[in-house]
């Protein structure tokens, strides 16, 4: 369950502009394969982190590359690293919500682009016969997976909140001045 196969990673790379894929595509797949082989022997948590990090890295990287291709100011990639830095104020849910919204917007743009490409390509080829588009099934699966993990995250946070371990209560009890 907690693994991204090389084939799925290859599909995720379709989110990148073609020019980036042509230069770095095979290299990225080779590096991903090596990282995946290394992570395979580790526990579920390590494999889950790897999976989330790679998926987030591809989506963020693809968005930055599209931004660059559109003539936007280049941005140094900074995400993701292993730790989140907790600030004095509780910011994690807001940052996560914004990030997930950006990622969702990126996925939606990619879906629309994919549909436009399918519409522009003839579905019947003399060499290979009828071509059946499968991207909608694949993307539907991604959306379901995203919804599943979002629901799991919400439930987990609700449990932590009920146990008073989410950090909200501790921050509320923290006084700003000296004791």
């Amino acid at each position, binding site marked *: 369950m907690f693994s991204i196969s090389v084939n799925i990673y290859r599909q995720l790379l379709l989110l990148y502009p073609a020019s980036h894929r042509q230069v770095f595509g095979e290299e*990225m797949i080779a*590096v991903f394969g090596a*990282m995946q082989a290394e992570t395979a022997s580790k526990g579920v948590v390590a494999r889950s982190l790897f999976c989330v990090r790679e998926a987030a*890295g591809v989506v963020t*990287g693809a968005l930055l590359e599209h931004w660059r291709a559109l003539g936007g100011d*280049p941005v140094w*990639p900074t995400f993701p*690293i*292993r730790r989140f830095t907790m600030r004095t104020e509780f910011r994690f849910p807001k940052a996560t919500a914004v990030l997930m919204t950006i990622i969702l917007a990126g996925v939606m743009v990619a879906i629309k682009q994919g549909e436009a490409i399918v519409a522009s390509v003839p579905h019947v080829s003399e060499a290979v016969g009828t071509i059946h588009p499968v991207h909608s099934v694949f993307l539907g699966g991604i959306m379901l997976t995203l919804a599943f993990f979002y629901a799991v995250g919400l439930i987990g946070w609700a449990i932590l909140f009920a146990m008073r371990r989410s950090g909200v209560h501790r921050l509320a009890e923290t006084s700003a001045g000296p004791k």
Partner: protein
Amino acid sequence: MSLEAIMEFLPLTEPVLLILLSLAGQPRHGYSILKDVERMSDGRVVLSTGTLYGALRRLLDEEWIERFEEQDSSRGRQAYRLTPQGRRNLRLEVGRMKHLTRLASLRITGKEA
């Protein structure tokens, strides 16, 4: 590239600084860079392949690094190395950081004394 143009890129983000430091010692291929960055940061910075190749793309565009085919690799693996300009810029950034830490040490020591 003028000094003003270089200063526009500074300060570098931690992942980019670590990537450049990784290439400062020797040329490396992608997987080797990832592992070296993780090792240098004691496991604190773990880059995804997307983040790594985003940074490499920009460093290539700015000619801070260059890409070449490894001679001793049967698979024709691509590797990366610092250009003289990249090395000079890295020195500038490290110098900037040294100045900052020296200043910080002086101020902190002055406050504690």
